[in-house]
């Protein structure tokens, strides 16, 4: 039973990783990495911590991850059937899809009108947030530790007290004429 449970966990993990990697793709962590499609040459949502964020109880989605990953694999099987694709059975069905087909399926699941749209949008949103805001980590520490998402976006480092300040912030010159119908206090007349 233990082995089966572990295997279910692995299925869930690699399925969710493949989903997160579809949202913001990354480089394969090793040559035999199947969850990551490998269409980028630098880290994506998975290495940024998508699974850590999704499993954070604060998100409210942790309890739904099992059912969502099972549903995603069921959708992948149906999708493969529709398109005459044969799926490699060594990995979960969604993981077996190539990047272009993962994109097409995620696009369908997150489209307006899809009955399960809300769930897939939540999964996408937190996958995205792992990369662009590292919401599972303190931002200053994330940057100090080289968080791949914040680093690639060029997020500035905070001051030594952990706060951001930008003393250099303005071109400091008039760059347009004000609208002629402006009141003395600066509002539309």
């Amino acid at each position, binding site marked *: 039973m233990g082995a089966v449970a572990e295997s279910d966990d692995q299925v869930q993990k690699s399925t969710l990783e493949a989903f997160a990697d579809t*949202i*913001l*793709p990354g480089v394969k962590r090793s040559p035999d990495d199947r969850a990551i499609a490998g*269409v980028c040459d630098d880290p994506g949502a998975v290495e940024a911590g998508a699974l850590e964020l999704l499993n954070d109880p*604060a*998100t*409210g*989605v942790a309890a739904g991850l099992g059912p969502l990953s099972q549903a995603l694999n069921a959708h992948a099987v149906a999708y493969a059937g529709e398109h005459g694709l044969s799926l490699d059975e060594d990995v979960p069905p969604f993981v077996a899809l190539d990047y272009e087909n993962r*994109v097409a399926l*995620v*696009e369908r699941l*997150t*489209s*307006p009108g899809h009955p399960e749209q*809300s769930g897939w*949008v*939540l999964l996408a949103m937190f996958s*995205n*947030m792992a*990369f*662009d*805001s*590292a*919401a*599972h*980590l*303190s*931002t*200053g520490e994330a940057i100090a530790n080289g968080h791949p*998402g914040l680093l*690639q*976006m*060029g*997020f*500035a480092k*905070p001051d030594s007290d952990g*706060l*951001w*300040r*930008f*003393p*250099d*912030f*303005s*071109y*400091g*010159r*008039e*760059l*347009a*004429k*004000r*609208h*002629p119908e*402006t*009141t003395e*206090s*600066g*509002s*539309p007349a």
Partner: protein
Amino acid sequence: MSAVESTDVLIVGSGFGGSITAYHLAAGGAKVVVLERGPWLEGKDFDHDYLLGKSYTRVFDFVAGDGMSVLGGNCVGGGSVVYFAALPRAPRYVFERQGSIGRRVWPAAITRDTLEPWYDRVSEVLPVSQQSWNDISYAGGLWAAACNHSGHTANPVPVGIDTAKCTNCNWMMAGCRFDAKRSMLFNYLPAALSHGTEIRPLHEVQKISRNEDGGYRVHYNNIDEVDYRVATGSGVIDAKIVILAAGAGATPVILQRSEEELGAMPHGVGRYFSGNGERLNTAIINEERVGEVLGLRRPNGAVYEANQIGKGPVVACWDNVDGSKPEYSRFSMEQLYFPPGLGTILAQVPGKSGATWFGKEKKEMLKRWKSWLTIFLMTEDDNEGVFGPPPPTGNAYRISQQMLGKGPLRYDPTPNTLRGWAEADAAAKEILEKDGLATVAPWTNDLVGAYTVHPLSSCRIGDDPATSALDDRHELRGHPGIFVTDGSSVPTALTVNPALTIAALAERAVPGIIEAARSRGVDVTYGAPLPNAAASRPVTGSAA
């Protein structure tokens, strides 16, 4: 027999509408209690941190509806703590709007001229000031220069910011760490406290019932300070006057839930919601072209690369804020910073077809994040939002511990609204894509619907009982003694940032509320001096 707590005036929510009324009523002698569903934070509590559970998620409420999502405040000070402090007055034509009903929507008593004295009062308290070009961030400067290059004007936006304290950190949306942003925490709320107002955070009002004496009983849940999904208790307070100022995404829900006990609500409750016609466009700046065409250069040698630097919206183009144009063709275009997270996922890759909010092209776009410039469009929508049956508690089914929920709002944009959005999108694109300055695409509406940070009109004032929930004194039709003073009372989209108009309307509503309180036996007078911003200290939780 159990003793039920009672007060003269019970106020729901502590943003602009709640703080302003609380101050005047307390200063006039009434006993005032304010119930606020969110926590009570002050400067030192406002973290620069996206970690879930920090102030960033504690002070916001993001509610996804069907076709429209609403971002609002959830803390003492409400919307004033999470706003960007842009405080223009609404243009004159707004008050003449007809919308889809074919006749003037606003009450006859309210025009730009009649509202001016009330605008003046709020502008003195906050205070509101014009920015100089030296205050304008790189993002605002770039937007101004691009407008100028296209033959447009561009205005530094009037704001409630103490520029001497501002560090241009760009975290201001999540509360100001440096006490530079003029929120209600610095003026009306401390002044209200000094006159005995009680502010109770983490109290979420669920419904109102009527007492035999004609007063009201307000029912609330106590909310856990970490997990907002958890109620830790409940209670009631009796009041002679109830003022609802919970925000346009929550006030109508409270009234709908109260209908069983209070009797039928006016038709306008939970209808005519407006998202202030808001749209966000993301421009990816071509640094080289901007340098060549606009001649901009930073001291460090960069041209722009400054998306992260600044303080919210600082420059607006008002060329389409033009009363001679037909309705739905009038809009403002304002530069804005929107932090990562929700704002980033909704940005689409310009020039691509299909779903471009995710995938490898989107990741490439994120790598150019420093070169993003966000343009915020405020257009005229058609007040087409409708609230469905209320959730069991609060204004949404809460999903996350904080911030994220699913609400009952439905918003299906009419052809008028869609046309207005498209015209504004096209205008922003024309300016920013001229001579290769940038590529631009609007945020996607496919994920969480349209998106507003300025929800309005869900209980609007008006003269016509068929299309307004409140009379022109902000009293709920058919329910004397209940007033609404938040953004839900504003009858139409404003085509500019609405905070000053919401505040001015709340100031204007006060004499009528005091008159109603007096008629209900409350010993209260009108005429207290305005809070002195300079003399006020920041309001703190320990004062409660």
